[in-house]
């Protein structure tokens, strides 16, 4: 009669592994494909590039995992990133002009980014929860607003960071620690914190509860609006962190910055096995999803066998195939535990 036997526990552990295995299998197949097309795919330099690149989308997607798990959606992340990057540059350039260059300049920029990210996330959250407007509309609106604002502040051109400030800031993107690039460290830390938040705190549980049934959550003494708003703030924070490591990469921002990142971030989340309608979130899957997306882009640059015009088609086919593979093994493990 007692249910908690060690046996079932082991069983459960295995099932979870099987679930996460889906995206992982897809990623491994992709790597095999990459390697067979060009062995340099697995060369250290390329792997390091790939990981560093996936950090942007990955960090943003970790935030998106919370939003989506709690039943929301955020389309504004790409423009938000562009806007924050632009404001960081403006603030840092201003600081250089008025106070000269120092590490403080960069810290000021970072501080500004954090505040803007949290603020922007709060606005999205507030409008969705208190304004009771569909998240899709709110974030479609703010998407347009941030994109416009960066265009406006850049006067239709590019905002570029002062070259001295850039010199100080540069290492945050280009340097390594223990052989691992700093953006990858940031990604790792964000993913770990995200994982702990999702799986080991009440907050994560609340997100899943709200996404799976708002009514049940409310009747279970969960402050639905607050938790929802926090997911958007987390998303904003993640965008801000991604921007902080993005700015030193190119030292500039324009209206072309971050275009379509929202689609990529959401795709990474879904490829990772999180359910778009909410209720079930997997940070580990999201990380792998981000790696898969970045790897697809990278592999397309490795070969010449197909016309450039067809890049998008190949990308589309691989994404569909990756998710299909994943669902395949996922279903096997799921027979007994339908996630929805």
């Amino acid at each position, binding site marked *: 009669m007692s249910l908690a036997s060690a046996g079932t526990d082991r069983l459960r552990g295995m099932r979870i592994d099987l679930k996460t295995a889906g995206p992982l299998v897809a990623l491994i197949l992709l790597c095999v494909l990459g390697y067979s097309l060009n062995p340099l795919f697995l060369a250290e330099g*390329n792997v390091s590039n790939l990981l560093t690149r996936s950090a942007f989308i990955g960090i943003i997607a970790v935030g998106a995992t919370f939003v989506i798990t709690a039943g929301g959606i955020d389309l504004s992340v790409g423009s938000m990133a562009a806007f924050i990057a632009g404001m960081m540059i403006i603030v840092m350039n201003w600081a250089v002009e008025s106070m000269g260059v120092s590490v403080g300049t960069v810290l000021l920029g970072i501080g500004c980014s954090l505040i803007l990210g949290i603020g922007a996330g709060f606005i999205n959250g507030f409008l969705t929860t208190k304004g009771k407007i569909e998240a899709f509309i709110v974030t479609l609106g703010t998407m347009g607003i941030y994109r416009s604002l960066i265009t406006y502040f850049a006067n239709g051109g590019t905002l570029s960071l002062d070259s001295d400030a850039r010199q100080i800031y540069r290492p945050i993107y280009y340097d390594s620690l223990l052989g691992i690039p700093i953006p990858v460290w940031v990604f790792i830390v964000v993913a770990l914190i995200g994982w702990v938040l999702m799986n080991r705190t009440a907050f994560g549980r609340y997100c899943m509860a709200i996404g799976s049934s708002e009514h049940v959550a409310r009747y279970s003494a969960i402050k639905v609006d607050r938790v929802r708003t926090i997911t958007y703030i987390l998303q904003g924070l993640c965008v801000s962190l991604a921007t902080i490591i993005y700015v030193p990469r*190119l030292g500039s921002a324009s209206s*072309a910055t971050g275009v*379509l990142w929202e689609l990529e971030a959401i795709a990474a989340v879904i490829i990772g096995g999180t359910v778009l309608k909410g209720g079930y979130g997997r940070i580990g899957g999201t990380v792998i999803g981000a790696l898969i997306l970045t790897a697809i882009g*990278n592999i397309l640059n490795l070969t010449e066998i197909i016309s450039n015009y067809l*890049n998008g088609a190949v990308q589309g086919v691989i994404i569909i195939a990756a998710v299909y593979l994943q669902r395949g093994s996922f279903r096997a493990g799921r027979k007994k535990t339908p996630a929805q």
Partner: protein
Amino acid sequence: QDEQVRIGVSIPAATHGWAGGLNWHAQEAESRIEAQYDNIDIVLVTADSPGDQASDIEDLISVQQIDALVVLPFESDPLVEPVRQAKEAGAFITVVDRGLPDTSIQDVYVAGNNSELGSVSADYMMSRLSEGDNIVILRGIPTVIDTERFDAFMAGIEGSGINVLDDEFANWNRDDGFEVMQDFLSRFPDIDAVWAQDDDIAMGVVEAIRQAGREDEMFVVGGAGMKDVIQGIMEGNELIPVDVLYPPAMIATAMDITVANFTSNGPVQGEYILGAPLITQENAEQFYYPDSPF
């Protein structure tokens, strides 16, 4: 001589007409050059944003291990570092169209000239219009290229007494050109000329003017050198009487020059300015490529 040379070419993806032409010319040049030289391999990659392009260049360096890079930057400033890395990895650098602020990186610069496109258009406008005449402007996508063209045009007509009724973005897109022009036409009863600064937009504008039946009131100036437009000019079309060249073929020129660095005896260096000449009925024929998709 038989040493393998790999040349990476990084350009924006074919998201609008001009970029489509750019892609076409790049591909044509690739097959032509690869057929001509056994030892040259060209790797062509396309990007959707400055960040993408930076990634592409990283890949060209680390995976393709290129000996030369031909790059038409999405935007100038953000690509300085990636191109510098290619340089430091030992590649020969050819920059096309949009110059990098740090000219020491490049070995060769093949320049289009966006400002010139603006000022040549302005000169033509002033030659046809007089004080008090009205024009409307349809701009591209809010980016550096567009801003340069626009600023140069405005500087060009300054003091001429020509009124700019309004300007709106038409995103280098025929549909937007059509819709924005429809709205300009309902708004302004008196328009004497339209500066569309891009042939795709101009095509949309022309349809809107035809729909309104106001072909006789105004003329349109586009830009780039799309074959349909040039054909029209050759045939004496009065609605689009001229065009300002901004040839997407410049990428092929740049690739040829880069190849020359490896095939000819002397080193190749310097700037190749293509300029933005005015295409009129007299000289149109020499800019007409009937096989190009653009």
